[in-house]
């Protein structure tokens, strides 16, 4: 889960990290609570919003009101602006970058910092990677102060004690909340303290069960503020936590593995077809998940043909067949279904499909060609 800025900042503040005084603005009338001058920051879950006009400093009431209205009418990188964080402006003498994350190359937590903080950090990383300082942390002993002091030295920080205290807090949050990324950019050095002016936090969805209360609170806030238009299929997939990516074509696709799912898409494309979506059930799918996944994919009215691409390892084809047959029986639907089925218990699954009047191909290429042809014929 990616936190919105105001959520991340609130979380840091709760743990004792200095942040600017701020107010969340979700409608123009919230402006009453805002003291001027202020910095209005669009709460959208994407980077680069500053360059896209999503951060605006306003001095007077009239200006504030018109900028707020303007922002609420705008869409930043695909995200309609639903909320603004209004923060008191801060006098900054230096802008640093700090992050704690799981480095997937080294399989180690990584503490990272740069004296070139601010909106251009990605450029810095690309052009002058030596300006990004990295310290791997051994997870069995955690981040020790010497590693933090080493960063402080590289960043030429004067108040080392304050920096060590801040980074320790970051490490604690990272550990306690199962974060996979915790980034403060910029970390501002003001006249008398270190202050987080923007933060990005990714929490591990796989660990949500350990932090149920926090996750559900953050999620419901995000849902409340997210007014992007969503198709029926998208809404259904979110509700059912099914991995579904709409692609705009007319051939619906369900796979039981990400690799074969992508291969199937590639093959549809190469055969001249247009995939309507990517949808993968994961290795632990059963009959019910199969059935519910079909409901999601077929909720998309653009779908003219559905291809189900199955090559069970962990997934059992008898269970998949049961789910497909149940769906077909329960729904009065007319979209033709092309099934590729092989692998674990396919000997049991294929007869079940046949009995329900459905056919199954053993070969993926044949199944794809059939589906693409059917889509063209319709």
């Amino acid at each position, binding site marked *: 889960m990616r936190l919105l800025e105001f959520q991340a900042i609130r979380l840091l503040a709760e743990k004792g990290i200095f942040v600017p005084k701020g107010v969340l603005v979700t409608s123009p009338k919230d402006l009453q609570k805002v003291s001027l001058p202020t910095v209005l920051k669009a709460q959208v879950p994407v980077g680069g919003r500053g360059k896209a006009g999503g951060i605006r400093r306003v001095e007077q009431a009239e200006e504030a009101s018109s900028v707020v209205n303007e922002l609420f009418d705008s869409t930043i990188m695909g995200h309609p602006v639903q909320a603004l964080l209004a923060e008191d402006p801060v006098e900054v003498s230096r802008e640093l970058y700090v992050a704690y994350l799981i480095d997937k*190359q080294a399989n180690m937590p990584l503490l990272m910092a740069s004296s070139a903080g601010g909106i251009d950090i990605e450029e810095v990383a690309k052009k002058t990677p030596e300006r990004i300082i990295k310290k791997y942390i051994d997870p069995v002993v955690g981040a020790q102060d010497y590693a933090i002091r080493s960063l402080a030295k590289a960043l030429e920080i004067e108040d080392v004690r304050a920096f060590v205290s801040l980074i320790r807090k970051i490490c604690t949050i990272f550990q306690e909340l199962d974060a996979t990324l915790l980034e403060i950019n910029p970390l501002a050095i003001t006249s008398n303290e270190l202050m987080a002016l923007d933060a990005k936090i990714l929490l591990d969805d796989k*660990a949500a069960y350990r932090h149920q209360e926090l996750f559900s609170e953050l999620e419901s806030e995000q849902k409340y503020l997210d007014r992007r238009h969503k198709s029926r299929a998208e809404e259904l997939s979110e509700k059912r936590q099914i991995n579904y990516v709409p692609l705009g074509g007319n051939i619906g696709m369900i796979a039981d593995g*990400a*690799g074969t*799912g992508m291969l199937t898409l*590639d093959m549809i494309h190469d055969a001249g077809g247009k995939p309507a979506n*990517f949808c993968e059930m994961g290795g632990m799918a059963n009959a019910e998940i199969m059935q519910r996944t079909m409901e999601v994919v077929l909720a998309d009215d653009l779908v003219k043909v559905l291809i189900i691409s199955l090559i069970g*390892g*962990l997934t059992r084809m008898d269970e998949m067949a049961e789910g497909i047959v149940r769906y077909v029986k329960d729904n009065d639907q007319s979209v033709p279904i092309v099934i590729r089925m*092989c692998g674990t218990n396919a000997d049991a699954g294929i007869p079940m499909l046949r009995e329900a009047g459905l056919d199954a191909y053993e070969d993926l290429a044949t199944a794809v060609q059939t589906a693409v042809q059917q889509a063209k014929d319709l």
Partner: protein
Amino acid sequence: MAILIDENTRVLVQGITGNVGSFQAQIMRDYGTKIVAGVTPGKGGRKVHGIPIYDLVEEAVQEHQVDAVISFVPARFAKDAAIEVLSSGIRFLVLTAEGIPDHDVLIVLRYAAIKGATVLGPDTPGLISPGKCKLGVHPHTMFMEGRVGIVSKSGSLSYEVGRVLTKNGIGQSTVVGIGGGPIWGLSQEAVLQMFEEDPETEIIVLLGEVGGKLEHDAAAFIEEHMNKPVIALIVGHTAPKGAQMGHAGAIIEGEEGTAASKITSLERVGAIIAKSSLDIPELIKKKGI
């Protein structure tokens, strides 16, 4: 022998009484894998498919020599179970669970390094050495004994390619799934190295997806360390940028993550690029294998 496992590998199945563990244990046993014991807390003293069950790994290793463990323990309990295995001195662990929190995986992998053990996965189908040993959930009828080594980030893609090869009479030495999640133990490079050194492997098929920079690392490794031919298939060239297509590993990260950029890297170091799974048998035959 094949890499990592062979017909003599003595296997313990952790989580042997769950739906999946019990079902897969039977398939592996029937395939010929030497399963010597199973572990499920609270189920000790019973048997599953004739395999004795213990409450604890320490009890099982007192009674049996164990070379490898395949774990079907659910994600929430996987860390505890993995540390139990590593603490008992067993040196090879296959972690099938999907959805283990990243912080747990980090500790397990670090602890494995401390204990000198190898972890395959998590979120892996495991591995199969056709005709010798199956330590995983592969649909084994799609595989046959032979001289092609397969290493794949995706389980399903390795089945698909295995199936196409077998249909064309081309057998495999070992088929390894390194794991679908964002972090995993045994690296692609380590597997490539084993294939390079394995006398029974003549050619390697490397299967990848869009996202990450795994294949760039593989390309660097191939350039420096590999003499055997490598055929690579990268799926997802039609995936739109930025869309998450299943595995967290398959997020397109800048230019490096695109299928095209991966293919370019691999081609540069002499890998043979397959456009689709269907091309692979022909490419192998061209190499005279």
